[in-house]
C-alpha cells in the first residue's frame, strides 16, 4: 500500500505553489493509507478475483455438463432476485408515503435563528471546465440566506483547467469565496478535489454544491437546525435534488420523474428503514470533523457520494433527509446523459465490490435490514439494469415466435414468479414514477411517467457502457457537461400546486 500511495504523491515544491500544505495533501489519500479495504483502488482484491474466477469456472463446468439445469437454476435465482427487489421497493415507497421522513422546519423556526449563533459553514464547489456555469453559481451563492461572515466557499479548480481559473479570476468574487487549485495528478476525480477542500475547511459544517446548483436560500439554516434536532449518530443531511429545466425536452422530463422518485419517495423511505443511503453528489451537509474522521471521500470511486453513504452506515453513522431542494441542470443531450449514467453505474458496481471485500464484517456492522437494503439498492440497481435486456429479449421473442423450447426454462413455479415480476413489478416501477411527479407537484409531468419503460432502455445502455468501462478504465471520470439548458438566466421555478 505504501508503494501504491506514493504513486499519487505530489512534490512539496509543487504543493507550495498551490498553497497546499503537505499535511493537507497527505489527507487526500489517507483513506488509501489507513483503510485500503475501503478504497476502490484496486476495484477487485485478489481474494475477490479468485472467488470470481472460481464462480465463472464453476458455472462454465456446469453449463458443459448440463446446460439446461444450469440455466434453469440461474433463471430461477434471477427471477427470485427480481421478486425481492420489487417487494423491497414497494415496501420502501409504502413507508415513504405513509409518514413524512424528512427533517422539516417551519419558517418561524428558521427565522428564530440568530446570526450570532450560526456556526461557520464551508461550501465546497468542485469545478472542472465550468466557465459557463460560474456566473450562475455566484448568483446562487449570493442568494444564500446565511451571514456572509459565517460562510467559507472554496472553489476547487484543477491545475490544467486554465479557462475556468481565468473565468473565476475575472469575476468579482465575494470575500467569503476562495480559490483552491488542485495540482494535476491521478486520479483526476471530483472526490480527490473534495478531499483537498475538506483538509482545508474551517467550518463546523460542510456542504458540497456543483457548479450548476441552485440551492434553496434557507438550506444552510435548515441544515443547522437539522443537525441540532437529529440524533447524535447523524453526520450527514441529504437535501433533495431536482431540476430547474424539467420541461426542456422529453429526456429532461423523464429524468425529472426519476429524480423525483429517487429523492422524494425512495431515499426518505430508505432513511427511515436505516438502510445505507446512496448520497446524491451534491447538497450533502456534513459535520466536518466527523467527516474527517471518516477520512473523507474515496478519491478513486466515481460515485464517491454513494460510497460515502455506505461507509457512514458501515461505521454506525446515519444520514437523514432534509426537506430542502437544490435545483440542478438535468442533462438534456442524450450522449452526455448516457455518459453520466455510465459513470453512475460504474460507481455503484465499484461501491458494491469495495464493500463486499469483507461481507461478514459488513453485515455484522449493518444488521440484517440495512444489509438487505445495501444488496438490493447498491448491488441490485446496476445488476437489474444489466440483466434487463436479456429478459426483454426473451419476452419479446416468446410473444413473437412462441418458442416452445423457452418453456423448459420457465417451469412452474418459476413461470408464476416471472409473471408476477412482469406484470406486477413493472407496474410498481411505472406507477411509482407517476406518484413521484405528483408528490413533487409536477402535475403536468405525471403523464410522462407512463413513458418510463422507454427510459429504462436508455438506462440500460448507460449501464452496459459503465460496466464495460469498469473493466478497462475503472477510475476514469466521465465529465458531465453543463450549460446545455436553454433558460440559462431563468430563476428557479417554485413547485406549483404542491400535492401535500
Amino acid at each position, binding site marked *: 500500500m505504501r508503494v501504491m500511495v506514493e504513486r499519487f504523491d505530489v512534490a512539496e515544491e509543487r504543493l507550495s505553489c498551490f498553497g497546499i500544505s503537505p499535511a493537507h495533501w497527505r489527507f487526500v489519500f489517507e483513506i488509501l493509507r489507513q483503510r485500503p479495504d475501503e478504497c476502490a483502488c484496486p476495484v477487485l482484491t485478489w481474494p475477490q478475483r479468485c472467488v470470481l474466477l472460481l464462480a465463472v469456472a464453476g458455472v462454465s463446468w456446469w453449463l458443459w455438463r448440463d446446460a439446461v439445469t444450469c440455466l434453469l437454476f440461474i433463471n430461477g435465482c434471477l427471477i427470485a432476485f427480481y421478486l425481492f427487489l420489487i417487494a423491497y421497493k414497494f415496501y420502501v415507497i409504502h413507508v415513504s408515503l405513509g*409518514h413524512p421522513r424528512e427533517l422539516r422546519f417551519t419558517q418561524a423556526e428558521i427565522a428564530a435563528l440568530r446570526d450570532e449563533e450560526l456556526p461557520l459553514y464551508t461550501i465546497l464547489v468542485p469545478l472542472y471546465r465550468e466557465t459557463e456555469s460560474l456566473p450562475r453559481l455566484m448568483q446562487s451563492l449570493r442568494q444564500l440566506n446565511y451571514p456572509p461572515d459565517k460562510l467559507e466557499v472554496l472553489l476547487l479548480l484543477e491545475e490544467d483547467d486554465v479557462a475556468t481559473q481565468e473565468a473565476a479570476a475575472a469575476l468579482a468574487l465575494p470575500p467569503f469565496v476562495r480559490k483552491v487549485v488542485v495540482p494535476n495528478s491521478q486520479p483526476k476525480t471530483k472526490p480527490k478535489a473534495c478531499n483537498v477542500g475538506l483538509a482545508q475547511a474551517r467550518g463546523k459544517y460542510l456542504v458540497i454544491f456543483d457548479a450548476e446548483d441552485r440551492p434553496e436560500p434557507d438550506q444552510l439554516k435548515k441544515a443547522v437546525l437539522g443537525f441540532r434536532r437529529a440524533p447524535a449518530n447523524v453526520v450527514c443531511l441529504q437535501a433533495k435534488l431536482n431540476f430547474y429545466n424539467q420541461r426542456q425536452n422529453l429526456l429532461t422530463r423523464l429524468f425529472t420523474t426519476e429524480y423525483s422518485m429517487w429523492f422524494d419517495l425512495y431515499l426518505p423511505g430508505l432513511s427511515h428503514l436505516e438502510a445505507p443511503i446512496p448520497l446524491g453528489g451534491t447538497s450533502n451537509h456534513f459535520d466536518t470533523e466527523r467527516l474527517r474522521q471518516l477520512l473523507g471521500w474515496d478519491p478513486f470511486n466515481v460515485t464517491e457520494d454513494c460510497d460515502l453513504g455506505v461507509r457512514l452506515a458501515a461505521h454506525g453513522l446515519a444520514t437523514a433527509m432534509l426537506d430542502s431542494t437544490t435545483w440542478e441542470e438535468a442533462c438534456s443531450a442524450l450522449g452526455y446523459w448516457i455518459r453520466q449514467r455510465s459513470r453512475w453505474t460504474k460507481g455503484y458496481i465499484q461501491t458494491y465490490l469495495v464493500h463486499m471485500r469483507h461481507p461478514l464484517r459488513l453485515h455484522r456492522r449493518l444488521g440484517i435490514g440495512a444489509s438487505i437494503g445495501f444488496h438490493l439498492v447498491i448491488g441490485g440497481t446496476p445488476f437489474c439494469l444489466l440483466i434487463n435486456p436479456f429478459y426483454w429479449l426473451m419476452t419479446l421473442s416468446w410473444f413473437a415466435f412462441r418458442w416452445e423450447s423457452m418453456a423448459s426454462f420457465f417451469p412452474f413455479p418459476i413461470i408464476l414468479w416471472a409473471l408476477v415480476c412482469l406484470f406486477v413489478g413493472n407496474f410498481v416501477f411505472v*406507477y411509482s414514477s407517476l*406518484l413521484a*411527479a*405528483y408528490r413533487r407537484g409536477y*402535475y403536468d409531468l*405525471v403523464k410522462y411517467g407512463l413513458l418510463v419503460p422507454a427510459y429504462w432502455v436508455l438506462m440500460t445502455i448507460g449501464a452496459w457502457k459503465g460496466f464495460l468501462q469498469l473493466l478497462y478504465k475503472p477510475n476514469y471520470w466521465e465529465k458531465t457537461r453543463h450549460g446545455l439548458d436553454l433558460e440559462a438566466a431563468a430563476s428557479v421555478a417554485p413547485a*406549483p*400546486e404542491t*400535492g401535500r
Partner: protein
Amino acid sequence: MQTIPMTTGRQGVAIFLAFFALGVAAAAFTGYPEGIPCQDAVVRCGIGEDLLAGLTRGRQGLVGSLRWAPLPTLAVLPLLKVTREAPLGLAACAAAAGAYALLCAFLNSWWARLRLPGALRLGALLAFFASPAVQGHIARGSSDAILVLVGVGTVCFLIEWWETDELRPLAYLSLLLPLGMATRYQFGLIFVVVLLAVFLHLRLRRRGHFYAQGTLIIVGTPALYIAALWVAANWLIMGEPFFFLRGLPWQTLRAIVQGGHMSASLAERICSAGSAWLTLVHEGCAWEVLVLPLLMALAGWAGARVFRRHPRIGALPCVVVALLILCLPESGTSWREAESTWKMARVVRQLETTDSEAAILVSGYRGHDMRYLASPALRARLEHTISVYLDEALRRTRGKRLYVIVPPPRGLNRWEDINIKFQTLYGRGTNFALYERSLDDWQLWQVVRIDQP
C-alpha cells in the same frame, strides 16, 4: 388526520398475524374433517388446483369470466400449495381469514390516525373478528371477505383523501378500485361512485388543469392497466379479447336499440333490460355483508370528528357497532347444505348410472362442483372444460360415446359457456346433439359423431 408512530405499524403486523392464525385455526377445527366451504370456495379452489397442475382449464377459469373474477382465485393460489392434504376448501378459508385479518390491521391503523385510543380500537376489532358473521365467512371460505376488505378500504381512503388531499390515500384508493372489480364485477358501481366523487373533489378544489389531469392519471392508470391485462389474457388464452364479458345481457341492450320489429314496446324493452341488469347487481354479490363493516369503520371516523377533544368517547360508536355485529346471528349456508348442491348431487347420482364407457362433457365453473361430488369412476369419465370446444372433445374421446350435460340457463348457469355458445341447446336442442334425458332440471344430450362406436 395525524401521522402515526411506527409502533402502530408493528401493531398492525401483530394484529394481522394473530387474527389470521386464529381465523385459520377456527376454520380448520370447526370444518375438519368434513370441510364446509361455500360454492364460491369450491370453484376457486378447483380453478386454483387446475392452475397449479398447469392445465389449460385452469388458465381459462382464471380469466374467462367476469362473474368469476380472478382476484379471489389468485388469493387462494399460494395457500393451495400449503393446504394440499387438508380438507376441501381450507385454502379458501385461509384466504378469507387473511382478508379479515388484513381488514382489522387496516382499521387499527386508520382509527389510530383518527387518534382513537388503542385499547378501544383493539376491543372493537376483537368483537368484530369474533362475530358469527365474520367467523361464518371464514369457515365457508367465502370471497365476500375480499370484497369487504377492498370495499371498506376504498371508502376509508376516499374519505381520507377528500379531507387531506394527500398522495398516500389517493394512491391506495386508485389501487383498490381495479382490485375490487377483479373481485366482484358489481364493484363497478362503487367504482363509478368513487370516480364521480373524484370529479366533484377536483371541481370543488379548482387547483388547475394539470392538477386535475395528474389526479385522474393517478386514479385511472391502475384500472386501465388491469383492464388491459384482463383483455390481453382473454385474447391469449380464450382466443377472444372480450370473452369474459359474454355473460352480460348485451341482447337486452340490442333489443332496445334494434328491437323496432319486436312486439314489445320501447318501455317494456327498457324495463326488461333494466331488470336483467339489476339482477346482475345482486347476483353472487352479498352487498349486505359490506354494510356493517363499513358502518363500523365510518362510525369510528364520525365519532372522531364529532368528539375531537374526547377520543375515548369518539371511539364508542365503532365499539357499539362492533358489539352489534357480534350479536348478530350467522347467515348463509355452507356448500354442502345449499340447495344448489343437493340438486347437483342428485344430478351426479343419476350420471353415475349412465353408460360407464361413455364420456361426459361438462363445461364451465359448475363443473368443479360436479367433480368434487362425483365418484372417482365418474370423475375419470368427465371431460371438464371452461370453454366448450366440441372438436377437441370429440378428438379426445375418439371411439367413445360423448354426452353433454347442460344446466338450465338461469342464475349462475347463465354464465356458463355451454349456454352462451349454444343458446338453444337447453330445451330445444341443436343439429349436433340428440336429447338423451333430463336429470332433475339439467339435460343430458348425446353428441352425434360419425365415428359412433
